[in-house]
């Protein structure tokens, strides 16, 4: 029983990080129809920047916020590359962001080297239902919940968020009422950068990140986003949690090395089952 609780909680923590990265992919895709392959790389930069900033330069809290904002700027730059040139088709933009993630990898090796980096996080652990849980993992879950709530409020309540939603649902009509759809797309990339950076800052203390982590991160995020049809943040959160828990249960009861494959397999199955609906969403 305690074993199961431990797996469930660590699964929820893992799933939260998938969901955060996935939410970045969703935010960009909703508005621009582009899948941002560099979302994992942005998270790594966030985690590594927080490690550098917290190393005697800034106090806790400020350091993390600065790292997240830096990731937002990076996201914006990637957006400029991906959609800055008018008339770039979404699939070409995907490959541009693949190129961008490689450039970011080069920068990461240049600035931080090839070894994994981990910033200081919350120490110690608490006992929940008899299971020992690291505080940092709980922080990931709580912060993810807050981030998704803030995201929902932003999209439904704020003027900017409504503009983003309008551009997402009907770019033509949005342009008619005076919304600069391209600017909204760039804004979405910046917001995705912030979400990615947040994910990196939260994950890095318990899972050291290196330039090599970009692929697992972006695949996990994309898998979560697939649950939401690449458009719904809420279903992305649920998808991320499902993937995380399924992965941890696989790791716990079957074999630790199949965790990623489990997530990939689930992603493939969902994509193929829902392929008709997904294609329709794409066309719309």
């Amino acid at each position, binding site marked *: 029983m305690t074993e199961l609780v431990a797996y469930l909680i660590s699964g929820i923590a893992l799933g939260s990080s998938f969901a955060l990265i996935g939410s970045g992919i969703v935010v960009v895709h909703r508005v621009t129809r582009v899948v941002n392959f560099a979302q994992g790389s942005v998270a790594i930069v966030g985690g590594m920047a927080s490690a550098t900033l917290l190393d005697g330069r800034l106090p806790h809290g400020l350091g993390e916020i600065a790292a997240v904002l830096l990731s937002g700027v990076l996201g914006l730059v990637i957006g400029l590359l991906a959609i800055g040139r008018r008339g770039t088709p979404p699939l070409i933009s995907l490959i541009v962001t693949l190129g961008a993630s490689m450039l970011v990898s*080069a920068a990461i090796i240049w600035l931080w080297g090839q070894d994994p980096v981990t910033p200081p996080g919350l120490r110690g652990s608490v006992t929940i239902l008899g299971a020992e849980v690291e505080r940092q993992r709980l922080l990931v879950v709580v912060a993810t919940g807050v981030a998704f709530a803030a995201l929902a409020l932003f999209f439904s309540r704020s003027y900017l968020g409504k503009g983003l939603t309008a551009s997402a649902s009907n770019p033509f009509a949005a342009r008619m009422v005076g919304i600069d759809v391209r600017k909204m797309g760039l804004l979405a990339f910046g917001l995705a950068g912030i979400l990615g950076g947040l994910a990196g800052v939260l994950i890095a203390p318990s899972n050291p990140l290196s330039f090599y982590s970009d692929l697992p991160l972006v695949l996990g995020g994309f898998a979560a986003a697939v649950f939401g049809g690449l458009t719904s943040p809420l279903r992305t959160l649920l998808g991320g949690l499902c993937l995380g828990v399924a992965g941890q249960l696989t790791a716990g009861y079957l074999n630790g090395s199949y965790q990623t494959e489990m997530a990939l397999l689930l992603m493939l199955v969902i994509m193929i089952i829902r392929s008709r609906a997904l294609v329709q969403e794409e066309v719309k």
Partner: protein
Amino acid sequence: MDRVNPRYVLVVVAAVAGCVAPFVMGDLTFLMRMLLAAIVVTGLSLLMGYAGQASLGQGAFVAVGAVTVAVATTRWGVPPLLALVAAPLVAGAFAALVGVPLLRLRGHYLAFGTLALLLMVQTAMSTFDFLGGAFGISGIPPFGVGGTVFADQRPYVLLALGLLALVLFVTHRIVDSRFGRGIRALAGSETAAESAGVPVVRAKLVIFALSAMYAGLAGGLSAFFTPYVSPDSFPALESFTYVIMAVVGGLGTLWGGVVGAVLVSTLLQLLNLVSSQPQLPPTLGPILQYATYGGLLILALLFMRRGLVPAVEGAVTRAVSRRGGAGRT
């Protein structure tokens, strides 16, 4: 005298250069890798350019081809020639099998789906001892037919050249056929192609399997050449490199794959030479590699969308027609 089409001149120059290079170049490993990449990328360019389907995991089929050769020769004692023939067939059959569910996906979903396929093939290779397990399969015998056995690297390079020529010829014939026109229609609009009577699902599957056959052929040859196959032999970065080569050379052109492979490989080799100077830091190599990959990809996509081959072709055609009229193209 009839004006000579510049395209034929270029093809002859490429063929001569290809035949001379194995005898004058010192580093044949580099040449071999370049030729193998050219075979893979020709298939990928066909898939991405003509059929409009992106694959980020083409390495999965290279791996299947390589494992086929490794298992057949070391475990079953199959003669090398037979194993090499089997490699593309097994890879093609594998692609046809996984393609049925996978090709229901399009665009981004297919790109990520193929990448997931590559990672799962890697896992399968490291999990099942029959496929090599974590340590891989070593001791693959040298390639040979009958009594003649390949003793050094040169015959491999020549064989790869011959196979590349074969692959280009097959691709040329397919693109020019009725089937090829159907495929090109499909890349434009699946709905329009379907209503014009193109069997869309089957056509996509055939091209997918064909590109996998090319990849499997290259994989099989590389298994003989290396002669070692492990899950780490096919990193995702390599599959991304194929995409970069295809994009740089020009998607949906016969020669784009070859041009892209030659150009990108040469550039990386030069950077390797620069960064392996002893006084430079060891991290410079990977930094330059990633920066080049990323930079090339972005520059090519943003400023030369159709790739190098169409761009140069257009420039040459314009120059020829300016210089005195009707250059045939």
